[in-house]
């Protein structure tokens, strides 16, 4: 029996296929709940979860909070502005304080890469990484895998192209690990300044020509371009970025007819993705958000309660 009870989700690096499949399987059931009239399950009644977000986030934090509430956990949000972090308390001491309140899981987003791993060594509650700097964002990748599997029926053998700022992209790294584990053929494409060739060592194909990368693609995952990168040597500006790396209908002619378009949001429409493509019938961008809640319900339930399935009958 596969179980991830008590296991922190720090990233998808090294997470075995059976564990990913378990999350996806349970997430499918959670989605039935999310799609139903009464979204409340009592599976995490009496459990408490703290969202510690050292970096601003609306979607991920909201998605985790919603997931926890649908499962009837008590959840509090802990942000630097409303806490003792600003009084100079160390990261370790903050974690110890929160743990002393008796929490079962800590969902954290932190600017510093590797900080969830550090947290998992400091304290005993399950640590769920909600994004650490430019390293990993495992629940985003799990929801991307869930979406691909839902639409395509499988993941193995698919050509998945990730477009954009890969170097600074935590979504990209987690996706690479998850997709590779599930047997996909992963391709990366972006400007040379935002995509280092060293990433090929992760077992992926690196491209600097979007048309070449999109050839026969089954899935195209478009990443957000961060505006603070422009004009400081990474790329000249949004116009030129769109010309060379913007995903649009014309470019997608190279891809497979049933290509699936994804974007983790928030989008810069007209820069990394054109309006004709993000609202296209083959785009799953809104569905990804819904799937995010289902997947996070699965992750919270499985890491806190364990088991290799879930009973959603009420």
């Amino acid at each position: 029996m596969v179980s991830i009870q008590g296991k922190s989700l720090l990233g998808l690096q090294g997470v075995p296929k059976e564990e990913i499949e378990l999350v996806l399987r349970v997430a499918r059931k959670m989605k039935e709940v999310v799609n139903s009239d009464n979204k409340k399950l009592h599976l995490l009644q009496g459990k408490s979860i703290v969202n510690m977000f050292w970096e601003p986030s609306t979607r991920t934090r909201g998605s985790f909070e919603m997931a926890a509430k649908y499962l009837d956990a008590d959840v509090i949000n802990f942000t630097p502005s409303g806490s003792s972090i600003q009084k100079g308390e160390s990261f370790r001491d903050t974690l110890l304080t929160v743990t002393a309140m008796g929490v079962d899981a800590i969902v954290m987003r932190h600017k510093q890469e590797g900080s969830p791993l550090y947290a998992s060594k400091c304290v005993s509650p399950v640590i769920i990484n909600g994004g650490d700097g430019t390293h990993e964002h495992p629940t985003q990748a799990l929801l991307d895998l869930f979406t691909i599997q839902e639409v395509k029926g499988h993941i193995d053998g698919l050509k998945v192209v990730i477009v954009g700022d890969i170097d600074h992209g935590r979504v990209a790294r987690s996706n690479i690990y998850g997709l590779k584990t599930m047997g996909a053929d992963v391709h990366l494409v972006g400007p040379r300044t935002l995509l280092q060739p060293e990433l090929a060592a992760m077992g992926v194909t690196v491209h600097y020509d979007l048309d070449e990368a999109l050839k026969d693609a089954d899935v195209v995952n478009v990443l957000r371009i961060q505006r603070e990168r422009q004009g400081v040597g990474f790329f000249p500006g949004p116009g030129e970025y769109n010309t060379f790396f913007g995903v649009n209908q014309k470019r997608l002619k190279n891809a497979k007819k049933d290509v699936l378009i994804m974007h983790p949001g928030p989008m810069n429409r007209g820069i990394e993705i054109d309006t004709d493509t993000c609202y296209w019938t083959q785009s799953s961008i809104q569905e990804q958000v819904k799937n995010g809640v289902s997947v996070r319900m699965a992750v919270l339930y499985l890491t806190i309660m364990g088991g290799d399935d879930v009973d959603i009958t009420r």
Partner: protein
Amino acid sequence: MTLLVKGGRVVNPAVNQDEICDILVENGKIKAIGKNLPADGAEVYDASGLVVAPGFIDMHVHLRQPGQSAKETVITGTQAAAAGGITRVATMPNTNPVIDKAILVEGMKYKAEHEGVVKVEVIGAISKGLEGKELSAMGGMAKAGVVAFSDDGRFVEDSDFMRKAMEYASMFHKIIIDHCEETSLVAGGQMHEGVVSAELGLKGRPAAAEDIAVARDIILSEITDTPVHIAHISTKHAVDMVRRAKARGLKITAEATPQHMILTDEALRTYDPRFKVNPPLRSEEHRSAVVEGLKDGTIDAIVTDHAPHTWDEKDQEFSLAPSGFVGLETSVGAVLTHLYHTGAVDLMTIIRAMSTAPARLLGVDAGVIAEGKDADLTIIDLDKEWTVDASSFYSKGKSSPFDEMIFTGKAVATVVDGEFVMKDGVVLK
């Protein structure tokens, strides 16, 4: 008082000596070296089965005084040196205040004289406040007895300023030691740039930053005819450039640390700040090139870059933790285990790089076992197995990349001016 170090294997690179003999010490000086010397009432130390070397000198150490005594002090730093078999250290000026004028050098020398367990040399700053803009009072500091000039921790960015600093320093016959990492290329960098940094999502400090800095310094050394010493060299191109500069007869020398010759960036995979250092631990091709450089004489000295920080400073998220870690208590064990016992580098070369060569570079009368010289000795058991326990270090810094490693080879006694300052790992002062 007299001491007879009896029956040890004397390895004395300055005269290419490697033989079993006795050393007689009187009043802090070496009185005689020879076979079967009579004790004549002297305290006898049985060194049979042990190596007796000229006192080791670590020319790149941060004692952190003045101003940073939470990290280290002259007392704890020199105790750590004694524990590690080091008889003399040269301390870097990136303190608070920066050691950039004579009075501060005099203060440090006074403190070292009264509190130091081993000998302490002082390195003066190249620029006032390490700001890389105005020359420090080099002449005054030279008169006060500094052994070198360095803005260590920072690269001297402005090439015109560095040229003038070299020209000015050359009048006082002191070497310039530069921390070679071109500033713009390493801004925000957390570790060596390569496959590992790409996977970890950490901004890299490319080898190219060191290569560019070393190339510039070699060129400036040539046009100013000033001796320049490359601190903690860590890249294959830098080693090769130094090799070629030496072949051309330029006044370029270099040092390397145990960490850069033993560890690689693979160690960073757990985001553990105890492996965080500048220049960063690099990939295997660089590591092995540095060892080659030591072997063929391109690299003159082995140094630790002993850089203690408090536990709280190192116990942070990786990117927020400061760079640097301690090394005085592990250098001999690390080097013997990973360079000598592996057959990579011979004992004479290692001992030369830890005694004779740094003495020559700093211009101090040491690094040789000879009649009339100060009786500074490092006594080593090549085969002693021991486990590194950073929590038991004499240094205030408890962060070591070698923590919990098993080493073969250890300094078992440290003699300074004819007196034992360490025996069997216990510091006696």
